[in-house]
């Protein structure tokens, strides 16, 4: 039986570079120095990396739950793509958290072996999306905030955070564009979609207050030139949201303030279900290698 040359071409093993989205074997931080910058507390830096890493990890999990459920194939691809980008950011940040902590924990130890009170993400990322409008509303507020944050993080004194920020800006620019596009389509589309999009914005809005509530770790590291001061992101966030909601003919809810937050380890019941799903297999196979 003779087969085509194409078959031989498939056995070329040098095409790994086309494998995008952080799943390849190349280290996206290759060449970036990993020593802690002078005068930076390792425990603080570890805590900060967990905050930003957990935001990405948990939202990625919620997006993974949409796989095979999207309204169109193009959205199937977009949602998976955004989930992959955030998973890639989470991996880099958790790895950096482990390095800064100095106790030998890697990305998987931190993702799979911590319990709920040790997670540091904002509560917005935990909630389940009742429909596609909620997915979009959450992604809109999250990516608008995170783009502003990563953009400033790109000038961090920590070279690893600076590299993560610079890489993430390109990714999250697309996430925000995707979410804004659907916010406008749904807001402007039909009476039903307008109502659902407004309900979704109203539902996620109270959770946006956490974005700007400063945590002591963030403030200390901001003073040291490593972290971004949360309150500094508010004006960009407000300007973008006002513009997008206006074009989408949606009402902007009133600003909110918050007390204790996910940054302090305060979480809702939904996190328990997320962790049960995410961690079950890893914990059920002691000594397993994957």
């Amino acid at each position: 039986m003779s087969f085509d040359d194409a078959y031989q071409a498939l056995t070329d093993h040098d095409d790994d570079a086309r494998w995008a989205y952080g799943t390849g074997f190349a280290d996206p931080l290759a060449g970036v120095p990993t020593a802690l910058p002078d005068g930076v507390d390792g425990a603080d830096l570890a805590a900060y990396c967990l905050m930003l890493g957990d935001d990405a990890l948990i939202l990625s999990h919620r997006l993974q739950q949409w796989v095979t459920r999207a309204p169109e194939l193009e959205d199937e691809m977009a949602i998976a793509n955004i989930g992959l980008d955030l998973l890639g950011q989470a991996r880099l940040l958790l790895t950096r958290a482990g390095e800064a902590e100095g106790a030998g924990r890697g990305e998987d130890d931190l993702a799979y072996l911590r319990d709920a009170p040790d997670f540091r993400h904002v509560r917005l990322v935990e909630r389940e999306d009742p429909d596609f409008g909620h997915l979009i509303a959450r992604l809109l507020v999250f990516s608008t905030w995170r783009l502003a944050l990563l953009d400033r993080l790109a000038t961090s004194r920590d070279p690893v955070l600076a590299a993560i920020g610079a890489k993430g800006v390109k990714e999250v620019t697309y996430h925000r564009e995707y979410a804004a596009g659907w916010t406008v389509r749904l807001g402007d589309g039909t009476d039903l979609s307008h109502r659902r999009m407004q309900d979704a914005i109203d539902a996620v809005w109270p959770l946006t207050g956490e974005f700007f509530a400063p945590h002591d770790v963030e403030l200390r590291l901001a003073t040291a030139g490593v972290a971004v001061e949360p309150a500094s992101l508010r004006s960009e966030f407000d300007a973008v949201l006002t513009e997008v909601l206006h074009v989408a003919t949606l009402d902007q809810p009133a600003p909110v303030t918050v007390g204790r937050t996910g940054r302090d380890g305060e979480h809702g019941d939904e996190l328990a279900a997320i962790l049960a799903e995410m961690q079950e297999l890893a914990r059920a196979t002691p000594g397993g290698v994957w």
Partner: protein
Amino acid sequence: MNEQAFTATIDKDQRIEPRDWMPDGYRKTMIRQIAQHAHSEIIGMQPEGAWITRAPSLRRKAILLAKVQDEAGHGLYLYSAAETLGADRGDLTRRLIEGRQKYSSIFNYPTLTFADVGVIGWLVDGAAICNQVPLCRSSFGPYARAMIRICKEESFHQRQGYELLMTMMRGTEAQRAMVQDAVDRWWWPSLMMFGPPDAESPNTAQSMAWKIKRHTNDELRQRFVDMSVPQAEALGVTLPDPDLRWNAEREHHDFGEIDWSELKRVISGDGPMNAERLANRRRADEDGAWVREAAAAHAAKRREATARERQEVPA
């Protein structure tokens, strides 16, 4: 172009393009084959997609999510290729969820453990590659071109699946048992992916004449068996077939009789997961209807607004 030109193009091993004249039977066969292939990619996202949120390491999670995303991409190229023949993606999706068009029966088996993710990559994607590489030379241009890209990505998935299994085989006893169990469950269904034996394959002769298909089902199945045996040895697993052995005379492996009644049962809709796979696809389609309607309504408003502006501005 007319029938003579069509035949001459086929005879010269050149491509038929969407605007060329083609016999109705060729068009119908191509639409059916491409649509079934597209449906298989989309339904095929489900068995592995179920493990993304539970993947036991972040690296495996990323690899799996990227793979399932690739499958959505393959579905998209293929539906687009079918649309060049006059088909409509929405209509093809309705045919799928109403059970009027088929998808590969392999996806009607359940994925019981994480080892299934690796075995699907190794055996199911491996079988798909054997089937699909010759399609890169299919006579219909858009399909052949889509297949080149798809085959490259599938071969990447196969290597990743095999690498996962290799890693698990170096792990604990429980992990090795998990891999063997998954191989036991997927081996025979993988052999069935090549379709009925040549003697009972009604469409093969015409498809070979039109160069839509380049090798018979049994030729491709043999190639797959010959390719898989040394890979199983390197992995350290046993393929569940007592009759599997090298035949020096034929220079191929002999293998046992396939349970064709099982294939017929699964194809006709009685596999373990048929109902659930279609119900999931139907639910996603129904849940997304309001979103698609909103997008269409928004686009229509934009078109009207643009038309009004053009009228208001004197040329």
